[in-house]
């Protein structure tokens, strides 16, 4: 039954997380009996429940791992790094067996079990106990092909995986040259998972076809950990009589919060099926892009099909990857739910009252304004409480996120031959679950960078008088309406000279530009910037920090970097507590409405001539003796209508900067539900979101940071 399987999966997920944590602890304390027992029990439960709920393969596989830990806790064998490695690999495999929807190749599991048996056999007298089953499943036709889920199997590999779009157009004489298509596709299949489209619109009718000519073209989506060159190599012998284009359309190393992929128009444009003009003319008709294009004969149904499938395929790949990395349930204290239930009860009562008044009004009876007011006030109170309550439920401690990093640090240090240990503090700090999920990728990237580029090798470290083992400290603390997360390493620090020369080389700054150290450090957030000499598979491809910054900014957060040569680097993230509802101040400019986060407002008052210091053309106001830059929002947004006689202004603050915004009028407080902006509007920096007002119109939410930056840089 579906429910039971779900239940098992949830339980298994927790147990597997526990196993991972404890295995890492075990490495530091190999003799600890409690740890061994806990791990044994966890595997035991996974095995037992597995057979109960129909996960036989899991049960079979886990059986042998359980035996391993049984031996360990009985001290028949002793713990060492290799055993921990194989146990971690086993844990990953069990995860795949449970959560991957496609059947997993037996090979991977067998390899692990062989290693396990290697530890068991010298010891076991009755080794006939460890039954090595050769479960052979008849391979499905084209088992691995055309399925994005299989691609994200190996958890460690999924980080390096990319999806390529390959368009393969053999020339007409392709067959006559003796070349064959199917073996090429077969080779590609061996590199990863494939989704193949044959485009046959040019195949003529039987009486005009030349059977020895190739009329078919292919669009192939390949998800693989192989490099672009390796993919290109597949076509090396047929290069001369075919056209091959390989584009990377999804990259696991490129952090992306959303699993959203390109729109159909974009995909078709990229593939050369439509040009810019055509796109625009189609966009004017408000129907589905693809349908219109096909109707107008601009596009074959075939091409549309393949674009649609590409969209879905990549979405699936991304979603799968995201889901793999984050569970989708949260634990909630039952008291929180109890108060939620109470609140709902009150709302129901209130609603009944409102219904009653409405009925009375319909019957012609009078409903007094004060009765309505009372309902309205109560409604406001209840919605506020409801909002707080549900926000609270979504608040989850960072502990889980931090814990998963232990494994990451361990694996990375091992891979890069460095010795690093990680410390955390403030794991009990809570954040909205959405925010935590979105933070995972950026944090992983930052940690990777620290270990890859920051922490030196043990030899280098001892030479410079540092302890062999490097450290990465992650801490979190509350600070007003934000949470501060710091990642601090004691590595070699950022080299401002290297950054400077790289920036000049990339054309990011001019040769004679004078920048402070802090400003130089911020250059690492420029796109394409990476001062690593060679890109390791881990980082250094230059796609990292700018995407990290963007992701943090999408959470309305900030990122800052500090560093000292040979001492280390500290990255600080400031993240607001919740994503979606803020207390805002509603303003108007002409007929348009805008919202500013109330917490950023310092003061509001009427705009009077005495606020302008002597001399026109200054961008400064004198407010009670303080000189503050100002921005006239009418000018900024190009408002053409007649301004009102008396205008108002509000002073906002972001960090240490203040700016005064001149508006038409300040309407008042407004509880604002933030809706993200459509991607098309992302280029408008000063606006960070939108909201729907009570009358159904839209108000834009102003980005405080951008406005203060703009004003203080004097643009």
């Amino acid at each position, binding site marked *: 039954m579906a429910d039971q399987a779900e239940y098992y999966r949830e339980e298994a997920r927790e147990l597997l997380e526990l196993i991972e944590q404890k295995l890492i602890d075990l490495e530091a304390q190999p003799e600890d009996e409690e740890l061994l027992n806990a791990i044994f029990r966890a595997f035991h439960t996974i095995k037992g429940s597995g057979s109960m709920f129909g996960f036989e393969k899991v049960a079979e596989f886990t059986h042998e791992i359980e035996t391993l830990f049984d031996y360990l806790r009985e001290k028949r064998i002793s713990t060492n790094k290799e055993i921990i490695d194989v146990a971690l690999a086993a844990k990953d495999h069990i995860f795949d067996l449970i959560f991957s929807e496609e059947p997993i190749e037996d090979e991977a599991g067998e390899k692990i079990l062989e290693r396990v048996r290697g530890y068991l056999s010298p010891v076991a007298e009755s080794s006939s106990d460890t039954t090595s089953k050769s479960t052979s499943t008849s391979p499905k*036709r*084209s088992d691995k092909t*055309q399925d994005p889920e299989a691609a994200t199997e190996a958890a460690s590999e999924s980080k390096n995986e990319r999806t390529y779009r390959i368009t393969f157009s053999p020339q007409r004489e392709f067959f006559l040259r003796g070349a064959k298509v199917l073996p090429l596709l077969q080779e590609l299949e061996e590199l990863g998972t494939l989704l*193949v489209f044959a485009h*046959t619109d040019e195949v003529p009718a039987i009486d005009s*076809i030349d*059977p020895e000519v190739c009329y078919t073209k292919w669009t*192939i989506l390949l998800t693989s950990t192989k490099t672009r060159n390796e993919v290109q190599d597949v076509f090396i012998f047929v290069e001369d009589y075919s056209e091959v284009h390989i584009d990377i359309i999804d990259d696991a190393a490129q952090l992306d919060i959303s699993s959203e992929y390109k729109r159909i128009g974009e995909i078709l444009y990229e593939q050369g099926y439509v040009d810019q003009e055509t796109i625009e003319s189609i966009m004017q008709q408000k129907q589905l892009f693809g349908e219109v294009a096909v109707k107008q004969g601009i596009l074959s149904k075939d091409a549309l099909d393949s674009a649609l499938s590409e969209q879905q395929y990549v979405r699936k790949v991304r979603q799968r990857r995201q889901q793999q990395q984050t569970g989708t349930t949260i634990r909630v204290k039952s008291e929180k739910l109890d108060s939620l239930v109470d609140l709902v009860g009150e709302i129901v009562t209130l609603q009944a009252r409102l219904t009653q008044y409405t009925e009375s009004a319909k019957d012609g009876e009078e409903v007094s304004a004060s009765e309505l007011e009372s309902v309205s006030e109560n409604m406001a109170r209840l919605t506020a409480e409801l909002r707080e309550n549900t926000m609270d439920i979504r608040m989850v401690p960072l502990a889980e996120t931090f814990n998963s990093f232990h494994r990451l640090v361990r694996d990375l240090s091992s891979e890069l031959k460095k010795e690093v240990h990680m410390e955390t503090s403030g794991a009990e700090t809570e954040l909205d679950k959405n925010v935590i999920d979105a933070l995972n990728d950026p944090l992983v990237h930052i940690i990777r960078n620290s270990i890859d580029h920051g922490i030196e090798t043990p030899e280098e470290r001892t030479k410079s008088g540092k302890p062999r083992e490097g450290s990465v400290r992650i801490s979190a603390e509350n600070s007003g309406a934000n949470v501060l997360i710091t990642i601090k390493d004691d590595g070699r620090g950022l080299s401002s000279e290297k950054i400077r020369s790289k920036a000049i080389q990339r054309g990011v700054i001019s040769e004679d530009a004078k920048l402070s150290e802090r400003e130089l450090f911020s250059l690492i957030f420029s796109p394409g910037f990476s001062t690593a000499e060679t890109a390791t598979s881990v980082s250094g491809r230059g796609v990292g920090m700018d995407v990290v910054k963007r992701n943090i900014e999408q959470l309305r957060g900030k990122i800052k970097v500090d560093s000292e040569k040979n001492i280390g680097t500290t990255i600080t993230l400031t993240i607001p507590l919740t994503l979606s509802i803020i207390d805002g101040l509603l303003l108007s400019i002409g007929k348009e409405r805008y919202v500013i986060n109330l917490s950023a407002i310092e003061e509001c008052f009427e705009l009077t001539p005495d606020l302008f210091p002597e001399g026109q053309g200054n961008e400064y106001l004198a407010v009670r003796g303080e000189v503050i830059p100002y921005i006239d929002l009418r000018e900024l947004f190009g408002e053409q209508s007649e301004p009102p006689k008396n205008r108002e202004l509000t002073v906002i603050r972001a960090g240490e900067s203040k700016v005064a915004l001149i508006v038409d009028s300040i309407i008042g407080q407004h509880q604002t539900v933030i809706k993200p902006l459509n991607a098309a509007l992302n280029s408008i920096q000063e606006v960070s979101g939108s909201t729907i007002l009570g009358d159904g119109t839209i108000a834009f939410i102003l980005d405080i940071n951008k406005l203060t930056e703009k004003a203080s840089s004097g643009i």
Partner: protein
Amino acid sequence: MDIRIEENEETTHISFLGNATVEGAMEIRDALMETLQKSNSIVLDAAGIKKTDVSFLQLLISAEKTAQESDKSIEIDPSSYSEVLMKAAVQGGFCREEEYESSSSMHSILTTYYTKVTRGAENG
């Protein structure tokens, strides 16, 4: 490659035996073309196919297009199981195990064959 044509009252059966590849493509095309001229309903038997390639799949598509234009029917007999043909059709991207939201396929002759065979196999 051996091509056997059997004309019945309502349908004509064409069986392919051996290698349905580019080397015999001319022959295959001629057989398909002539049969399409003479008959309104054609059933292809794939069971004897030992090897195949894209040229054959292309011919099937071509035949299907022609049939559709003149309101004739052509299909591959789902009871003539050919692992070789199925594999080539899927590998070559002419049909998929899972439909990704595409309603009509350009290659229905192969997709239909594939679907019918796999459904038949599932039902034992």
